[in-house]
């Protein structure tokens, strides 16, 4: 009976799903395009505040930015989680198997962008990759890219600062992931992996009955995941924007420019050192990024800070400690942090 329902996809239901998604998209677009008008109306008309008034400007920024970022976030997370129902790590592993160094690193970094892992998946993923005989370097390219190039951060940078900044972030993240992977691959780090990793056998107990999701299930999954992710981060977003709005309205424009501007040599390493222990999801860090850029901190420094926050995190390091010896962890963090610092300097010099 179950197999019969599988053979006959419920077409009307699927069509209704697509209609709903299209409707939601239209509502989303209308809402997104009327944000500034609504914010202006509330602050300047309804509350009668002047745009020159710091409170008015801060409030306007807040009322405009909160729904804007939440809308961007929901829309993009929906699309990405939908895309993710098509890609599983098990497929990725098959995909990456037998690729040469370089090509393999590039592919691994690329796949890392769309399939980030929940930090608790890092260990099974790592074991799975090692077991499949993937070169150490390719595995590391993936491990670096997955958190470093955060798709939410990418989309939000695109929405807030344009494609140039988003592109810079994407390209430099890819470059760091590929080069870090190749470098770590050359070090011959196999002996710094905990021996139990090699003893675990990846089985195929309970052959999978998954991988045959209908469109209805995919949409449903995307809605559930979106609600979950947005539900988890919205408070950080609001808090971040509130802080941003306060600075936007009250702190003079070039307050930070002098201390953390282009010419400050120590700003980049300091930003990375501060960013590594800080753990935040990408959504929480973007408002801070927006404020720093707004107040004259150099772009390279800001990107370095952001990458350090999302790309290297204490919880991830603690979890990876299960499979890697301290030496390998140190090299992993060191190589990635160095890559981020160099990227920061590079952008500060060329821009």
């Amino acid at each position, binding site marked *: *009976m*179950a*197999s019969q329902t599988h053979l006959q996809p419920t077409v009307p239901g699927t069509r209704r799903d697509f209609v709903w998604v299209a409707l939601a998209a239209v509502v989303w677009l209308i809402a997104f395009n009327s944000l500034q008008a609504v914010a202006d109306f509330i602050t300047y008309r309804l509350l009668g505040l002047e745009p020159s008034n710091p409170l008015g400007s801060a409030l306007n920024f807040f009322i405009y930015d909160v729904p804007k970022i939440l809308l961007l976030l929901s829309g993009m997370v929906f699309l990405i989680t939908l895309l993710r*129902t098509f890609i*599983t*790590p*098990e497929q990725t*592993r098959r995909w990456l198997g037998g690729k040469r160094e370089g090509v393999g690193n590039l592919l691994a970094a690329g796949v890392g962008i769309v399939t980030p*892992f*929940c*930090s*608790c*998946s890092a*260990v*099974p*993923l790592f*074991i*799975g990759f090692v*077991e499949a005989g993937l070169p150490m370097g390719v595995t590391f390219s993936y491990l670096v890219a997955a958190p470093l190039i955060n798709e939410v951060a990418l989309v939000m940078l695109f929405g807030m600062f344009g494609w140039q900044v988003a592109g810079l972030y994407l390209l430099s993240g890819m470059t760091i992931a590929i080069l870090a992977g190749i470098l770590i691959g050359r070090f011959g780090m196999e002996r710094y992996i905990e021996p*139990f990793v090699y*003893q*675990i*056998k*990846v*089985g*195929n*107990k*309970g*052959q*999978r*009955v*998954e991988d045959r999701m209908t469109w209805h*299930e995919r949409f*449903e*999954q995307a*809605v*559930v*995941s979106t609600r*979950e992710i947005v539900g988890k981060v919205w408070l950080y977003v609001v808090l971040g924007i509130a802080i941003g709005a306060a600075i936007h309205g009250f702190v003079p424009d070039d307050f930070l420019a002098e201390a953390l501007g282009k010419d400050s040599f120590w700003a980049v390493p300091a930003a990375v050192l501060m960013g590594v222990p800080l753990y935040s999801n990408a959504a929480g860090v973007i408002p801070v990024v927006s404020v720093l850029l707004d107040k004259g901190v150099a772009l390279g420094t800001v990107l370095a800070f952001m990458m350090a926050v999302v790309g290297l995190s204490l919880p991830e390091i603690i979890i990876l400690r*299960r499979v890697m010896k301290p030496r390998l962890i140190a090299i992993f963090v060191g190589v990635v942090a160095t890559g981020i610092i160099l990227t920061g300097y590079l952008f500060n010099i060329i821009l």
Partner: protein
Amino acid sequence: MKGTLTVLNIKVLGAGCANCKRLEAETRAALDGAGIPYDLVKVTEYADIMAYGVMSTPALVINEKVVSSGRIPARSQIVKLANETESA
């Protein structure tokens, strides 16, 4: 598993992060809601998890079949997966 056919054998695979706990809670809520009897075990050892060929947690196993991994299915889907596995 003869004789226990009416009771679903559920396993939640995951080292114990927030997502794994949520999958367990959602599964219990879904099956309780549908009135499906089940027996739920949490599998937290990596070696045991990997034996199922699962690389992304949390994963849901019903009657020794991996039905989802790396995500938390909607409750309606958990019920559907349970019914499918039962009748299969």
